[in-house]
């Protein structure tokens, strides 16, 4: 079994089935890209994996570290080592980045049986990670995401990922809103974490990100199903031709 295994996952929102049986297997050390037209269900898949209560699981299983995590609360999934970089991160007024991050990191550390970090020790670690992602140190004392620009929010997501050191990360359009330099910095951040200890599912619309984060596999989600999987060349083909040819092809095979 793969490290993360999604089997025939079906998800409904307000009674409408959005995911109609998704199958996907991601191993640590692998980078998978998930592409697909707007509204095809990519974020729905990401939220469902993380356990958003709004997304109703109507069928299927998700196996991670020996359990079907669909039975777990979102925080339990997180402490187990699952991470989601949000397409639209939330603003939390009055809660500083450093206070929040220390609580989050310590929650995960305690789950792993490690000593929680004290404020000073954590401050040093935070500083170092921020430096690496070229985030100004003053951000540590700002309220989480409050008044952050789109790109700053995305960088903050990657900062969180680098501190939480997940085993499986889903990045939902982390590239949108990033300027050219930030894209490279964020990509470097992701690349430095992928390795034997982490697998990634990158949701994106553009080849641009995949130039920096090179996927081993590319999948296309359409109308709630993964309709095609391939290597990096699939992304290039989509970039060049869009989705219509794929849709047409699928229709012709369906009618044939």
């Amino acid at each position, binding site marked *: 079994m793969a490290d993360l295994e999604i089997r025939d996952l079906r998800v409904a929102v307000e009674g409408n089935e959005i995911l109609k049986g998704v199958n996907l297997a991601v191993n640590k050390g692998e980078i998978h890209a998930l592409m697909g037209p707007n509204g095809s269900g990519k974020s729905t898949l990401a939220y469902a994996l993380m356990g958003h209560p709004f997304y109703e699981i109507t069928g299927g299983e998700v196996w991670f570290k020996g359990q079907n995590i669909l039975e777990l609360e*979102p*925080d339990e999934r997180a402490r187990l080592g699952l991470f989601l970089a949000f397409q639209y991160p*939330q603003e939390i007024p009055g*809660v500083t980045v450093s206070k929040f991050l*220390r*609580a989050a990191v310590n*929650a995960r550390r305690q789950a792993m049986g490690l000593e*929680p970090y004290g404020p000073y020790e954590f401050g040093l670690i935070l500083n170092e990670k921020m430096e690496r992602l070229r985030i100004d140190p003053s951000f540590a004392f700002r309220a989480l995401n409050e008044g952050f620009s789109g790109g700053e929010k995305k960088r903050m997501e990657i900062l969180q990922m680098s501190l*939480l050191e997940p085993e499986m990360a889903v990045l939902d359009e982390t590239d949108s809103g990033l300027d050219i330099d930030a894209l490279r910095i964020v990509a470097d951040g992701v690349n430095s974490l992928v390795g034997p200890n982490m697998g990634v599912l990158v949701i994106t619309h553009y080849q641009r990100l995949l130039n920096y984060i090179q996927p081993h596999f590319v999948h296309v989600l359409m109308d709630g199903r993964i309709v095609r999987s391939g290597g990096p060349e699939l992304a290039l083909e989509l970039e060049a031709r869009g989705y219509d040819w794929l849709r047409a092809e699928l229709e012709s095979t369906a009618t044939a």
Partner: protein
Amino acid sequence: MEETKVLETLRDDYAERYGFRDEATYLYETPRGLSRRVVEEISAIKNEPEWMRQFRLRAYEIFLKKPMPTWGADLSGVDFDRIVYYARPTDRPARSWDEVPEYIKRTFERLGIPEAERKFLAGVEAQYDSESVYSNVREDLARMGVIFCSTDEAVQKYPDLVREYIGTVVSIADNKFAALNSAVWSGGTFIYVPPGVRVEYPLQAYFRINREAMGQFERTLIIADEGAFVHYVEGCTAPIYTEDSLHAAVVEIIVKRGARVRYTTIQNWSNNVYNLVTKRAFAYEEATMEWVDCNIGSKVTMKYPAVYLLGRGAHGEVLSMAFAGDGQHQDTGAKMIHRAPYTTSLVQSKSISKGTGRASYRGLLKVYPGAEHVKANVSCDALLLHDVSRTDTYPTMEIQEQNVHIGHEATVSKVGDEQIFYLMSRGLSEEEAITMIVNGFIEPIVKELPMEYAVEMNRLIALEMEGSVG
């Protein structure tokens, strides 16, 4: 700074931390209920001068005549006949901690009082039911002429000062509970800071109700002479009983020209205390008065700290936070009365309603004719934790001058499901996530507290949030 500690202690609760009670023995206590005789007895026990006895008796007559206020929270549960108006645990306030009776010492030690004094306070007073049991001020301050003692002691030692000011800011006829307090008051803090003296560390008083069906009626009087500065911090707790207690304090503050007073309250009553407090300050020319008022617990709280801006350029602030838990009603607010030109005021109120809790903001902003160039700003934000939680705002504005700048805004929000999910996706439990959002919401107020209290406040919120999920 201390959030892991906060999370670690999430599991203990009010009952254990504050809700314990002592098997106290009282040297003296009045029988339940109020009468002229009880008032006279209190005065006699305290061996008061005649003017104070008369003050009490006049107030008692007014108390009888005044109707119960019906415009605010539901006070139908207040039973004046069931209350014990005076209970005296010790002879006189001790000056050294060792002199405090063992059981009282244990109480305050459990609450962390002497430790706090050693660490960062300029002076401490501790009141247990009716009487002050301990008071101490740093010697250097005493040498500079700073007076910090119980108001009873002040009546004996500084009668002229007390007589000059008591009842001048809050008249005995102001409202029913102010009249009641004036009749039966006991304890409370008296502070006088001489001209130009700045008290750099906070002075603290700690109020503890121990006896069941007790009435605590402390009377606090603070005078900051010209150009002086003082920060006073009060904290309150009570055990959990089945019979309701009544806390009806009166606080009067005089901030003279160019002086500044900050008055910080951290009230954490058990949910069987009626907390009906009149707090008012007079701020003269270029003076600054700041109320930082944090209200957690109690059955009903009615409290609207007021600043009368009487001199040109005076500034008033009320920064308040109210947490209404299940079945509680926090009816709080602020009054800013601009009577002089170029006066400015700021009101920032944050309330949280949990379960069936109800938080009301009730405010008055008044600008008298001729008070030109007034700048006033009022903002109140309410956060609702559950569908049954309730909040309401009653802002009153009486602006009788054209040339003024008035700002007002009010918001009501629910703890967002998306925010909770976001925090949970980082490994915080639902309760921790909501607690963090709530602590963030009140952060603008909490950051005004001295560090130790800010930590304590976050912890108290965590306690209140326990079991709020599910």
